[in-house]
Every structure is written in C-alpha cells, then in structure tokens.
C-alpha cells in the first residue's frame, strides 16, 4: 500500500508527465486557454489513459512477449490507442451522450497526445505489474490534468494582462509552463 502511495505521488508531482518528462505539450498549450476546455481535456485523458494503460499491458505481456514480438511495441501500442479512442468515442456517443458532449471534441486529440503513448511505454519500461500499471496510468493522467488545470487558471489571467505583442499566446504560454515546471521541482526528493 505504501508503495502504491509513493507511486501515485511520484507520478502526479515528482515525475509529472508534462512538466518533468515533457510529454503531451501540444494539447497542454492547445487546450489551456480556457478553464472549461482544460477540464474537459483532463477528464478525457484520465478516462482514455487508464483504459489504454490496461490494454497495452495485456497486449505487451500476453501477445508481444509471448510471441517474442517486442520490436512491434510501437506499432501495436499506437494502434491500440487509436482504435481505443475510436471505440470510446462511438461508445460514448451511443451510450452516454452527456459525457460525450463534454469529452467528445477532445477524444480525437488524444490519439496524438504523446502523454498517453508515452505513459504506456514508460509503464512497460519500468516493468510495472498490472495493478501498478493501472495506478501509474491514472496518476500520470491525473498529474497531466492537474498541471493542465492549474496552467489554464494562470493562463486565463495572462490573456488579460498587457503581455508585449511578440510574446503573446504560445510564447508566454511556454514561459509560464517553464515556471510551472520550476515550481514542480519543489516536489523533488519527496518520494
């Protein structure tokens, strides 16, 4: 149990997928201009990443490893994620239209969200068991969501400030993200 808590803290704060591992920056900058979109994206990533983590784990250990096809990891994982996103989209549209209305527009973006793919690979690299994979996927996604929501809050305010013209939009977004990364370094050594 203690290990799991350490893993969660490590994935959310210390090794935050966005700010310490640089994964998922395109949607990070793209969907953080408004708090509502950031919330939607965060939920969508959590939702998909937990499922993707579980399925890629199964694919890795029951297919790739079994048949000595480890070198197909990249292609297998990306296909799993892409079809999972498609499937989730169709499923939500039919069964939970309310949730689909909220997450719908973010789902296609997730296929090219390197955080999702990256976490799946990290899980395998670290050799996590199934439970650990689930926990780490969720925690990484939560860390992504947390950083995204915090960033969106700050960014909403920056948009209103008198930022010099050449710095506006992405440029100031990156600088602010840098400060976020700096702040998250404060969690270093906590696990």
């Amino acid at each position: 149990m203690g290990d799991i808590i350490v893993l969660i803290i490590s994935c959310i704060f210390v090794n935050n997928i966005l700010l310490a591992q640089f994964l998922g920056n395109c949607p990070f900058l793209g969907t953080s201009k408004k708090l509502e979109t950031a919330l939607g994206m965060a939920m969508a990533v959590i939702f998909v990443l937990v499922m993707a983590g579980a399925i890629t784990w199964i694919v890795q250990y029951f297919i790739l490893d079994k048949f000595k096809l480890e070198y197909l990891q990249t292609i297998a994982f990306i296909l799993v994620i892409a079809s999972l996103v498609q499937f989730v989209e169709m499923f939500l549209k039919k069964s939970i239209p309310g949730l689909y209305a909220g997450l719908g527009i973010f789902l296609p973006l997730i296929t090219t969200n390197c955080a999702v793919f990256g976490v799946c690979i990290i899980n395998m690299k670290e050799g996590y068991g199934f439970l650990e994979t689930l926990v780490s996927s969720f925690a990484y996604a939560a860390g992504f969501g947390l950083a995204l929501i915090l960033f969106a809050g700050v960014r909403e305010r920056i948009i209103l400030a008198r930022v010099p013209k050449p710095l506006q939009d992405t440029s100031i977004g990156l600088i602010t993200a840098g400060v976020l990364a700096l702040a998250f370094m404060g969690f270093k050594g906590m696990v």
Partner: protein
Amino acid sequence: MNDMVKMVVVLTLLAAASGFLLSFAEQKTAPLIEMQVLNNEQWPTLQTIFKDADNLDTLVDQRFKIDLGDDENVTIFPGVYNGEPKAVAFEAKSTGFGGPLGVMVAVNLDTDEMVAIGVTVSQETPGFGSRAKDEPDLANQFKGLGLLQSFSVKADGGDIDAITGATVTSRAVCAAVTSAGETYKSIKPEILEKVKAI
C-alpha cells in the same frame, strides 16, 4: 460493402507488409544492437573494474548468461587473474534521480568481496548525480567490502559517504549493490559451475 472490403484489405496488407519489414529489420539489427549495448554501456565499466585482469581483451567473448527465472537473466563476465577465473562481474539496476541506474559489480568468488564497482547507465542530472559515474569517490568505498550484506548511505544509518548534493543517486547505487548481493547469493553455485569451463 465494396468499400468495407477495400478498407479491410488495404489495412491488412499494410499491416502485414509492415510486420514483414520490421521482423526482417529486427533479425538483421539484433546482433548489432547487442554489441552496441555491450560496447557502450558495459565495456567502459568493465575496462576499469577489471583493468588488472589477464583476460581483459577476451572477457566479453567469455560472457555467459544465467537464468534467474521469470524470463529474466543476468550476463556474467568472468575475470581471470593469474590464469584462474577468480572474479565475476555482473550488472544490477536500480532507480536514481532521473531514471534507471546500472551498477556493474565485480566480486571475488573466493572471498565474496567486491573487487570493484562501476556505474554503467545513468541519466542523472548533469553535474550532480552524474558524478556517480565520473567521480570514483563513491565507487571506491565499496572496494573490498563483502558483497553479502546490505548497504546504505550514512544519512540512512549506513557506512557509505554520499556524494555531496546527490544523496538520491548515492542511495540508488547502494540499493543496486545490495540487490547485486542478493542475486549473487542465489546464483553463486551456477556461476562456480560455469566458470570452471573457462
């Protein structure tokens, strides 16, 4: 319906072609990659920790693998001193500040004491943790200590002086050496058997 068939056919063909291409590439590159790993990660360390061994030039070729169960295995490099395979080296891993950290441990088969250790893979923060690889202070402390015990840095109540400003890395090295000891304990009979052949 025709569309549907076409879609399936195209995708299947693409996937099949990709599979063939990659398995071909895999076969061709696998031995190259293994040599690269050896040359880049383990060889530099082996060179330093076995610098007095007789078989320095051939020890890579003399390596052998021991099965640890669970699909894991460990590669053992035997070191020959005065014509006798007196020591073996193998790698143990742990996690440091910025990712995996590997420690090559050379151990005397007679006394179970460490001949030397060296850090192999390290992605530690430049300037801090990476000193574990570059500076011998930490590694030298292990020389001559019995491997069959657990190690920890002084801050945690052990005997090892941590590198200033890189406590996490120093701890990771201790953890790796400790786990090397456990591995060693379990596979020593097999090692002894195999080295006889040399």
